[in-house]
């Protein structure tokens, strides 16, 4: 019995070695063979898709990467990841800089370029962390209602919504805690458009896109992230915000200063696809993952092929 097991093991070992050697000889030269770049991103569709785009682009450019995409469930650890030595590249949103710098409500975050410049400058100086070029997209916080609700009450933009609320229209609005607390969230909207959501009309805790779509508990309005891929499937309408009250949240790869110094080429490799990711493109890509159940890696690969950065297999 023992003999048989050791034979099997020996054969398995030889097979692995042969396969391993076979693979190695095919691979092209790797720039950083013994020091792979660690890509660590949370497990949310947008992070995962952009993470895989980065992985594929870097691998094509000849960089070895360690794939930690989707390794972190939830977004609570994002800032720790940006600052931790254990993660070389992750992703952030320009608007979140106001939390990292503790200046919620400042006007500078309402501009993509100014906000980006501010957090880039701050993180470079204090943490030696580089914010690479942002995508021209805005994954901001707006209000969403169902399409039927919007049509029935003639709601197109926030002025219409304010009128609806002021006329005593029924409302049950779901929102996370933070959004009712700072000047560019709900209070900012209320001030700019002239309405006031009563306390008993608020359900504070979390966004509730699915519940609004299904009408659970009479919920009819929720805060929503604007590049959410499920908007279409859930039949939601995102209420337009002509005054652009909330800050701009543009997706942006965040890399360790040391990594960028060693491999400055990364900036160009990633910017090649980042500059094409508009809000509409991101909604479409997220939709593929969230609504159609596609694998984020496949979505990322197909997209890179479609914009000509990767050869079709």
């Amino acid at each position: 019995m023992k003999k048989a097991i050791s034979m099997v093991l020996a054969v398995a070992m030889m097979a692995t070695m042969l396969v391993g050697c076979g693979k190695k000889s095919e691979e092209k030269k790797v720039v950083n063979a013994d020091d792979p770049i660690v890509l660590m991103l949370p497990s949310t569709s947008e992070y995962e898709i952009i993470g895989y785009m980065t992985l594929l682009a870097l691998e094509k450019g000849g960089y070895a990467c360690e794939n930690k995409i989707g390794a972190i469930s939830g977004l609570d650890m994002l800032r720790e990841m940006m600052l931790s030595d254990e993660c070389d590249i992750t992703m952030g949103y320009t608007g979140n800089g106001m939390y990292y710098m503790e200046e919620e409500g400042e006007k500078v975050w309402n501009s993509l370029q100014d906000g980006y410049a501010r957090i880039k400058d701050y993180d470079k100086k204090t943490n030696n962390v580089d914010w690479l070029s942002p995508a021209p997209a805005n994954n901001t916080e707006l209000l969403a209602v169902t399409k039927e609700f919007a049509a029935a009450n003639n709601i197109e933009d926030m002025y219409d919504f304010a009128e609806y609320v002021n006329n005593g229209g029924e409302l049950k609005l779901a929102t996370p805690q933070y959004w009712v607390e700072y000047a560019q969230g709900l209070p900012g909207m209320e001030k700019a458009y002239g309405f006031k959501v009563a306390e008993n009309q608020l359900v504070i805790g979390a966004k509730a896109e699915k519940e609004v779509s299904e009408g659970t508990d009479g919920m009819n309005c929720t805060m929503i992230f604007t590049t959410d891929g499920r908007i279409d499937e859930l039949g939601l309408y995102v209420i337009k915000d002509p005054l652009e009250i909330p800050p701009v949240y543009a997706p942006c790869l965040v890399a360790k200063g040391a990594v960028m110094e060693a491999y400055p080429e990364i900036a160009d490799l990633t910017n090649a696809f980042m500059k094409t990711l508009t809000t509409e493109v991101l909604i479409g890509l997220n939709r593929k993952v969230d609504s159609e159940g596609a694998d984020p890696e496949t979505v990322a690969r197909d997209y890179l092929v479609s914009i000509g950065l990767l050869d079709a297999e």
Partner: protein
Amino acid sequence: MKRYNKTIIVLVLISGVALVLPQFMYFKKLRIVANEIISALFCLGDAFYIVMGLIFIVLVLVLLDKHWAYCAAELFCCAAFVLLLYYESQSLESLPLEKTEFSRLSFGPGMWLWLASTAGVIIKASERVKLKWWLPLIISISALLIAALAVEGRLDGLAVMKEYYSQKSMYLENLITHITITLGVMAAAIIIGVPLGYLVQKSKAAEKITFSIINITETIPGISFIALLMIPFALLSTKYPELRQFGIKQFGAGPACVALTFYAVFPIVHNTRAGFKLVDGNFVEVAKAMGMSGSTIFFKIMLPLAFPAIINGIRIAAVYTVTGTTLASMIGGGGLGYYMLQTDSMDTVLLGAIPVVIMAFSIDKGLRSAVRLLPFVGEKRSIEGAERGI
């Protein structure tokens, strides 16, 4: 008058009612929204009558109240489950609804009720079945059949399978990570817990120190404990990067493993202590009188007598650990928590939950029967005492 087994009859009737509920399955055009709520008849077509017929046969069988009838009832319940899964999946093609290539069928309240009541029928019937190998046998056969159907692609209409296909690339890796973390944590907990449990019933000081530590860690909620442990791990990893290859990292399974080990040590220490405390002093006296040495007494008398309690401590710890490992994925440790924490679609959650439930169930059952099979456990009383965890 003949006394019927009322519970099981009620359960069979519930299972029959569940089949005719209008909310049996959800039809999802895409991944998240349940666009149509459909009944079993609408979903299954003619196959509905086959399943209904099986449940009717089960009803007749339990009314017969015979040993062989309960055996057959278990078999028919399992057969109904496999057939139901198969026909549900096959029916997606022929449903007269607007479909996309991403459409799927997901379990509705009716199906869940049917599952729960049928599982109840099987459990209740097994109380009357004397053949101990019968139920494990038919459950394994059904599991193999379902696995074969899944591999063959015959269950592709079900949402869980659709979710599996979109998560396929990492699924096996996450499953293996989950098992590895569980085994590692359990090994550490046993190595620490059992000697510690012996120590605390020997020395008062050790008891005080040990319990003041593990009683506190036991009360900290899992997520916050892991988050707290990330701080020392981060400091160590920044100071001595060479430690990272041993898993001393801020992001990874490390902090979760340490936290889970603390939780797992708790029942093991308590049960080991109780196990040794319950050893009848007379046995030890007799052994001494026979001239046995201290170590012989320990290995030949005390350890065997305390063993059932220790194994039960390990069982409780293992079941906790296999479910608790879910938390590891929050901080980059991998494992099935990745699926269980994606709450968009219930089916993704199931994708992580099903293997965890199967593992927890088999660990529990396996260790329970291991205790019963131990050669030196004669008295039934000691097993029952041990199962209560005293």
